């Protein structure tokens, strides 16, 4: 990691942690910000896919499906941005899916680590259980704005801390000896 990347990673992590703290105290505005971010991420994802199609995927067999996908996602992003408020149920489902998937992957990873006697399995298992718990909570309390903002804040806090830790991580050498 270059010095500039380290600094941007650290600052990005710090901003995420601060935003997480803010979201957990002001749930009303948190909901609006989460909805806006979701719509924006769809829009940006659509644009990214279009660029991917133009630069790479147009040369591949079946690459046109990427363009269709990009248009649909971009359209959905535009639509969501134009709504005055995104129905809360979608926000909760998004959070549930995000944490559920991440949790299952972490548990599978922990299982494989344990089989190989790698020491990291306990941490992975803990992450996995936490994520799955959050996903279950999202589904149970699907009508709760407060819980949605808490869960989003927790996820953001976690990502922020990881980014800060990564910015201090030792850089791997690109050289091959």
């Amino acid at each position, binding site marked *: 990691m270059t010095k500039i990347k380290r600094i941007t990673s650290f600052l990005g992590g710090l901003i995420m942690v601060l935003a997480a703290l803010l979201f957990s105290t002001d749930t009303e505005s948190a909901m609006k910000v989460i909805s806006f971010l979701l719509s924006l991420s769809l829009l940006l994802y659509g644009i990214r896919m279009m660029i*991917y199609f133009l630069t790479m995927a147009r040369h591949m*067999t079946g690459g046109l499906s990427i363009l269709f996908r990009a248009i649909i996602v971009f359209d959905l992003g535009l639509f969501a941005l134009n709504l005055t408020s995104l129905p809360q149920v979608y926000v909760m489902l998004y959070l549930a899916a995000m944490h559920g998937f991440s949790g299952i*992957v972490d548990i599978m990873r922990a299982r*494989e680590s344990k089989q190989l006697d790698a020491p990291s399995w306990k941490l992975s298992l803990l992450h996995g259980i936490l994520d799955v718990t959050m996903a279950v909570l999202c589904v149970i309390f699907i009508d709760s704005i407060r819980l949605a903002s808490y869960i989003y804040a927790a996820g953001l806090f976690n990502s922020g801390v990881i980014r800060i830790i990564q910015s201090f991580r030792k850089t*791997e050498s690109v*050289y091959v000896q």
Partner: protein
Amino acid sequence: MQEDFHYYATYGAACLAGYSHEESLAICYSDQFTDVCSETLLKKIGAPAEAATTQLQLELMDARTDLIGLQKITRIWSSFHFLPRDLYAKCKGGRRYRSKYRLICGPNSALLKDTVELAKGKGPEAAGIAMHILSDTWAHRYFAGTPSYVINNTDDHFFELYEGDGEWNRRAVIFHRNVSAGDNPKASTYIRTIRQVSENSIMNLGHGRAGHLPDYAYARYVYMPSWAGYREVVKDNPKEYYYAFCQMVYALRYLRGDVPEFKLGTYDFDLVEPYKDEIKGILTKVQTDASADWKAFGEKLSGREIPEFDMSLYENEYTLAAGASRPETAPGKYFAAANAQKSMVTDRIFSSGNWLAGISRRVGEEITRSLTGKERGAS
């Protein structure tokens, strides 16, 4: 390719090339070790981590796919399992697409010649690594040793070819992800990685999207590779594995000093001819593991028993050796040969204007020299 070919078939090829039982065992052990020499293993035994020749599933799951992460993956997989066919291949598309396209693996490349020549005079450990790479160029052709959706993806237009009523017929391959169900050649059902429409997803590394089909000697199939512009490609594994075997015998004879020069596209068909039917019988037999057949073949050639591959042999030898004498042990020589191979391939890829494998030590030192204006020691 799997243990059946990398271990037992390589033993047979080494015997045919004139090596003794012990030498053949050392060569085939090193060949197979290339599929298990991961960073996790190296760290466990206190060996240099940069000598890794493969990545475990767990390591791949944790691998970052930013530029540095991608370079690490590409260095390992392109150097040892998917040796690029043509680093200067012409194709449509911009620089980013071209960089990936040029890493597509294939046999008889200039890099293969460099690989075999690099192993010359460096003992059975280096010879084993070279044989692993050589045979994989046949099995893994058409796939790249770097994560790439636009190169390595395969879709549902995938058929197995089987002979019936005197002609070749097609049977649709059904891919699934039920690991416990495994591969079933009789029903043409095979496991493959999940489709991830993300260019650098680890699911798109090598032949993951075609499952283990490229690794099965009996498999004959037709499909449309992502990079081929809607053209069908036929892969005749029994034929290509036979070429791989004959080329291995030839390369091993060169390494042994029986042949003065290693020429591309040259195979020891004559030497293998007396065993042709037997080998072709093994290669065409529908089975996902041909170890027993190759073992019997090898034992018939040498008249000696071939022990099962025991991963802990190198581990024990290396950990029990005193620190200073470790480089002189068989695993020590293996790690040195692996490093040399990785450095050579990285250097060639980088010199072709492709950043996907990172910077080799040679280029790195040249840059340092030009920046500082003085000689720098090894880092």
